[in-house]
């Protein structure tokens, strides 16, 4: 049993009007000329096989930052450096370590998400397909930068600045539940900010910036006493006492469990005022939800009492809960042994009944030297000689020592109900002793690979279109929700497809270590050996031979004897 709470503290406004939009973010975007920004902090690993896809976009373990920046290459390079350093200060994270050695520029993944860009193109679906040519339609050049820190620990000091961006902070509304002691004691925790440009009207004459903040956590409610019953006050140890007065909408939406055989296994307290609703057009994708409008609740008669919500199961545990079957599941692992060389294997399972187009993006640090000629593909356990059927496009950027990472990006067609496996081997580089982390024998974290795919929506799952999806539930009447946006959302909804990103595991690679106590010894010994050669050679080059005279020898011996005698 799991429970996901999604908080959409969206605060959209015109740029430079800081009544809702956080000034700190606005200034950062302005000074570094950022078009679009996505920053995600994640602790733990999302179990796709057990949990389906996350409601809000959450990344692999650690910190992930990607942004579209305006300007030419040199300017973007400088701005990206400034951006990472400033965000590092703002969020108390080590984002400044995203330097050139780990920054990449994906060619196929991480396209624009701003609706401005969707609108400015002929069809919104073109942006979602493998079209790499998005830059050509816009006037000013934009460049993508992507970096991730898999070893970054996410904790309270990152949550506090995140809360500060909210208009009501954690004083009111759903955000008042955010107690770090409880949030970080979960199986998965992810918080993000997403900033993108949107259009205000159909012809996109007026643009605005949209800031979306999300927190995703997975509670294990049965961990404590084996009971699957839960309540908000138990989970968070806090209550919602009032709705944020600045918010247009403030709702708690509950996805109800999908039980197959036994109806009415659980009881919701309180029962939603508008009853159980359903979303999804077909039987396959239908999903029951319960909506609690906090604005309405706190304006009514029960305004003084805090909002309580709990779920009680009959027999304390659910029966026959429909298992989730995510369309694409991916795993990545190291092969081989020893500290000299190794291999990387990626398994992508497509559970869909139809072929799926997907983009695979992998960033490997420069200290793993990839050998692309060892790249091999297996389909359902059989090695393929011809990659063309599966790999439509391949983009490979070789690593440069101490300068940039290796990037492998593949546009794939995954056959229906199949398992595709890639393997590539690499050598491990021997690093200088100062390049090792203080806990050298723990190894180096290698960030996750990302698979981007358009997947048909399934029941109980809301994928990457979720943010837009949720807005429909909320029926936001704010004048910012413009027709262009609705069109794009409506189209995605009609297709019943979601663009999802599947993140693989973060890996740990151990590199050969030198003896860290040896610097002086090594310098001394090596220099001694070199001096031995230099000295002897100098000797041989400068001196000549001379015969030791027999008579002289005798004399010497005689002298010695005499000396002995005098003693």
């Amino acid at each position: 049993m799991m429970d996901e709470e999604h908080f959409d503290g969206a605060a959209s406004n015109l740029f430079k009007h800081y009544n809702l939009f956080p000034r700190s973010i606005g200034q950062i975007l302005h000074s570094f000329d950022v078009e679009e920004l996505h920053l995600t902090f994640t602790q733990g690993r999302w179990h796709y096989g057990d949990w389906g896809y996350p409601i809000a976009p959450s990344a692999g373990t650690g910190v992930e930052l990607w942004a579209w920046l305006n300007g030419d290459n040199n300017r973007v390079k400088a701005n990206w450096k400034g951006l990472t350093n400033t965000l590092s200060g703002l969020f108390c994270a080590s984002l400044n370590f995203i330097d050139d050695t780990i920054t990449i520029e994906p060619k196929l993944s991480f396209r624009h998400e701003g609706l401005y860009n969707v609108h400015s193109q002929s069809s919104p679906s073109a942006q979602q397909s493998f079209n790499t040519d998005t830059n050509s339609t816009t006037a000013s050049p934009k460049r993508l930068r992507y970096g991730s820190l898999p070893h970054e620990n996410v904790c309270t000091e990152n949550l506090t600045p995140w809360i500060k961006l909210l208009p009501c902070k954690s004083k009111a509304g759903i955000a008042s539940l955010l107690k770090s002691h409880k949030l970080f004691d979960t199986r998965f925790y992810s918080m993000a900010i997403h900033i993108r440009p949107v259009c205000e009207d159909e012809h996109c004459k007026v643009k605005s910036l949209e800031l979306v903040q999300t927190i995703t956590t997975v509670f294990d409610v049965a961990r404590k006493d084996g009971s699957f019953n839960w309540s908000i006050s138990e989970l968070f140890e806090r209550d919602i006492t009032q709705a944020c007065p600045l918010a247009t909408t403030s709702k708690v939406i509950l996805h109800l469990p999908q039980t197959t055989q036994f109806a009415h296994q659980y009881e919701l307290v309180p029962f939603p005022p508008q009853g159980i609703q359903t979303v999804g057009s077909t039987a396959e994708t239908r999903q029951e939800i319960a909506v609690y409008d906090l604005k309405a609740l706190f304006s009514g008669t029960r305004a003084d009492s805090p909002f309580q919500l709990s779920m009680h199961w009959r027999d304390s545990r659910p029966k026959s809960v429909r298992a989730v079957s995510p369309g694409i599941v991916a795993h990545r692992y190291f092969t081989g042994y020893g500290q000299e060389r190794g291999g990387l294997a990626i398994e992508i399972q497509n559970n869909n009944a139809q072929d799926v187009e997907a983009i695979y993006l992998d960033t490997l640090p420069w200290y793993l030297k990839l050998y692309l000629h060892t790249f091999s593909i297996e389909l359902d356990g059989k090695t393929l000689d011809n990659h063309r059927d599966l790999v439509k496009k391949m983009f490979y950027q070789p690593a440069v020592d101490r300068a940039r990472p290796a990037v492998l990006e593949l546009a794939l067609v995954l056959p229906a109900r199949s398992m595709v496996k890639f393997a590539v081997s690499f050598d491990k580089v021997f690093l200088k002793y100062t390049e090792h982390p203080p806990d050298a024998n723990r190894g180096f974290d290698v960030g996750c690979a990302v698979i981007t795919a358009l997947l048909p929506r399934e029941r109980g799952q809301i994928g990457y279109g979720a943010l837009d999806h949720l807005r429909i539930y909320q029926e936001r009447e704010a004048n910012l929700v413009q027709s262009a946006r609705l069109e794009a959302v409506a189209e995605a909804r009609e297709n019943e497809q979601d663009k999802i990103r599947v993140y693989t595991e973060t890996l740990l690679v151990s590199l050969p270590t030198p003896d860290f106590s040896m610097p002086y010894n090594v310098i001394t010994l090596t220099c001694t050996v070199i001096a031995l050669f230099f000295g002897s050679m100098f000797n041989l080059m400068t001196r000549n031979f001379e015969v030791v005279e027999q008579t002289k020898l005798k004399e010497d011996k005689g002298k010695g004897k005499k000396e002995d005698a005098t003693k």
Partner: protein
Amino acid sequence: MALTTVDSAGDSTLKRASPTPRSLNASIIFSTALALRIALFQFPALTTLLAGRVEISTPITSFKRCTPTSRPLLVNLLYVACDLLIGYMLSQITVLKDKDSAKALKIRQFGDRIEEPGMDGLKVATFYLFNPYTIASCIGRSTILYSNMAVVAGIWMGMKGNKGLAMFSVAAAAYLSLYPAMLIVPVVLLLARNDTVQDQKKKMALQCVTIFTGSLASLFLLSYVLVGSWDFFSSVYGTILMVSDLTPNLGLFWYFFIEMFDQFRPFFILVFQIHVFIFAAPISIKLRNHPLFVAFLLCTVMGTFKGYPSFGDASLYLGLLPLCSEIFKYMRYTFLIVNLFLYSSLLAPIFWYLWVYVGSGNANFFYAIGLVYGIGEIILMIDTTYALARRDFEAQSPPETSGEDPSLGWDREVIQK
């Protein structure tokens, strides 16, 4: 002191008068070497194993890091052919050298007996072709083989007096692995060895330097045309000179620069690289009458003190060593040197395994073996140089034997002053 010259030309022509058994022997040696290599190439596992050894493949010479080819058979044959060609060229160099030494001053020892001749060409070739280091780096497909071939070709052409080809070969070797650039000095010495007039020598040297520079420039230009940019310059020679890849090998650089403090790194890189090149000058001046030995010594210096040495370098200088076989009997530490080489070659793979795979050893184990190997090479250089100087002394000031104790021969007591 009277210098006595004994002409042994008649003796040597007598020896060379029977060509049939000699060519028969040669064909046996070369075909055995060929068969051995082709047989070993039949085991792909062995090729992969050897190609993966740090003692054989360095970042500069690793076949894996080159573009993989689809025709392994042809590539293998190319390696075998190059190896055999080096063997052939070594035997030819010996023949030319024997001709030279026929005219040279002979050493009188043990009364009036003359010095025995050194190894003949076939023996020298055999020594090279059946050297385990040679076979290992050939089977391991180390690209150092091509550089070695260029070096040996340069020496051979130098012996033959072919200025253009000699300089082109040295330039090719320098183009392939940079350090052989210093071999220009011994090869010029070889080319000028028969010139007696000083002006002629100078003219020759000037011509040689011009040809060398021209060949090197055209090789660079050719790569520029093929690659399309000058990036290869920094990626190839930058890696060689800056020692940016610290993959362990049997050299002295890798662990030193892994452990070196960052602020001293450029200084020590500069000192170590200058140290490799600096010996070209004093050795060439002091031993200018022995250009072949200078070539051997400089190759050994390279093979010892370069950033990425491998067994391929050892196979080159151990191949050149028998060209100066007449100095062997003046060497004092042959037993020690042989043991140091055996010890380090056998223990290096074991200690590597202990460090990288088992984890029961650490980096110091392999580093220590590298030191032992280095000391072996250093003692080899010192001892051969000593032996050469000692033999030179013997030729310049032979012992007075008439009526004296015959034991005052080549093993008489001398001191360096």
